[in-house]
């Protein structure tokens, strides 16, 4: 075939594939915005639900999701990063570390409802945290651990080897080397993992179903041992469990969830670009 022609075809096909990826995202967004925007109001965002959720706002669900996501991140990021540091910087390639790596990969493939059951068994029942923000956060945290460990590992492995060699040759200890010559340069990649984890933790319903989510709880949680409403579960409830909820309220709730995830991601991305600008090689 004429190279000019094949070039054109290749270009067109690749462009089409890209558009096909973008298209659903745009359509989903458009539908949600079109159907839900009319529900958004000050009252909707900042007041309690009333009359069996058919009126009032979704504040407890918004705050609940925020707390859960923050809790999950606070639990999973330090733990995941430390595990990644151990795997990359300290452990040598032996049977044990291969086993750990295999376990992490498998953990990533576990369906989220299994995490929910696990959380119910361990945190709610065994540790006796009950259905609470604590149990929910820990469950979500464990769910996002694999993605955080995996992306942290990749970030650490992409730091050039000579940073470590030079640092050690200057008499820095292993830990000083990690702390000052490796981690700062891996931070953007680690934050990417955090962003992915954030989105996932905010959106999942199954893991919070048995561990924290309240069907209808028109007050704000007072402590980490309280139950709480959460956006994804609330959305599920008003869409399928409670008849007669106005369509724009359902789509409005989805819109809020989507916006919340986007805002959290945005914050993390801004943070990341801060670090990128400071550290370049």
């Amino acid at each position, binding site marked *: 075939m004429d190279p000019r022609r094949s070039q054109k075809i290749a270009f067109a096909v690749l462009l089409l594939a890209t558009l096909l990826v973008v298209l659903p995202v745009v359509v989903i967004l458009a539908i949600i915005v079109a159907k839900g925007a009319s529900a958004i109001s000050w009252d909707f965002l900042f007041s309690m639900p009333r009359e069996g959720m058919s009126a009032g706002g979704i504040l407890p669900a918004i705050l609940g999701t925020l707390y859960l996501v923050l809790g999950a991140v606070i639990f999973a990021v330090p733990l995941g990063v430390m595990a990644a540091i151990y795997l990359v910087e300290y452990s040598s390639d032996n049977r044990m570390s291969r086993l750990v790596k295999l376990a992490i990969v498998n953990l990533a493939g576990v369906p989220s409802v299994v995490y929910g059951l696990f959380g119910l068994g361990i945190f709610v029942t065994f540790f006796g945290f009950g259905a609470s923000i604590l149990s929910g956060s820990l469950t979500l945290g464990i769910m996002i651990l694999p993605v955080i460990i995996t992306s942290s590992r990749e970030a650490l492995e992409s730091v050039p080897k*000579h940073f470590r060699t*030079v640092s*050690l*040759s*200057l*008499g820095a200890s292993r830990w000083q080397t990690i702390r*000052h010559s490796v981690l700062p340069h891996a931070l953007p990649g680690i934050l990417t993992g955090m962003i992915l984890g954030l989105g996932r933790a905010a959106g999942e319903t199954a893991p919070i179903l048995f561990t924290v989510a309240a069907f209808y709880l028109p007050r704000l949680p007072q402590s980490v041992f309280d139950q709480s409403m959460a956006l994804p579960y609330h959305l599920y409830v008003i869409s399928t469990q409670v008849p007669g909820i106005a369509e724009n309220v359902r789509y409005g709730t989805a819109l809020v969830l989507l916006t919340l995830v986007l805002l959290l991601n945005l914050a993390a991305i801004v943070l990341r670009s801060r670090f990128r600008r400071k550290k*370049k090689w």
Partner: protein
Amino acid sequence: MSETSIDIRALNLFYGDFQALTDIHLSIPARQITALIGPSGCGKSTLLRVFNRMNDLIDGVRVTGEVVINGKNIFAPGIDLLSLREKVGMVFQRPNPFPLTVYENIVFGLAVHRLARRNEYADIVEQALRSVLLWDDLKERLHHSALTLSLEQQQRLCIARVLPLKPQILLMDEPCSALDPSATLHIEDLMRELKKDYTIVIVTHNMHQASRASDRTGFLYLGKLIEFDDTVTIFTKPAQTMTENYISGRFG
């Protein structure tokens, strides 16, 4: 007889089953430049990395024999690696400053070893840059990224980076191989300047460099030290025919 800085006795080094250094005996004089030459793969870098024990980072390395620095065998149990590396600085083949500012590169070692107060840093940075003749070029750019410097400047910076630790010994593994000829000459001048205060061991592939810059030269072949003598002797009337063949370019 001049003072000895590094005394190597019956040194053997193995990478797993492969013996990279065999029965090396060598006394490296203080405050002189010692060059290690030999064909590729003969063990020059390996020997250099023995002196600050950077070979420890490689899995499966085994060492026998003694290397005495400051009266202590650095392979004796209980040796503090961190202070050994403080005393024995290393400059690598490729200029490899950290992707930090010039200033941060130089204070890195100070911070790691807590050697000075913060308010002394500025003076130490100036002194280090002066020693490598970079101060006038860089005094306005202390807080620019070190990666914006020319390669020669970067390599000078890498030398400056080890100086604040007040090392006794500087190890340089082909420090000029990424530099152009004039930068190479500049670094050699710098080495002659630095040898007043430091023992310098340099690995080089460049016969001219060894003969120009060093006081003593060791010739390694297949992990053995074939000959070690004054540089002039090695390059004019070596005792071994193997050495003679190598420096005259007949092999390697």
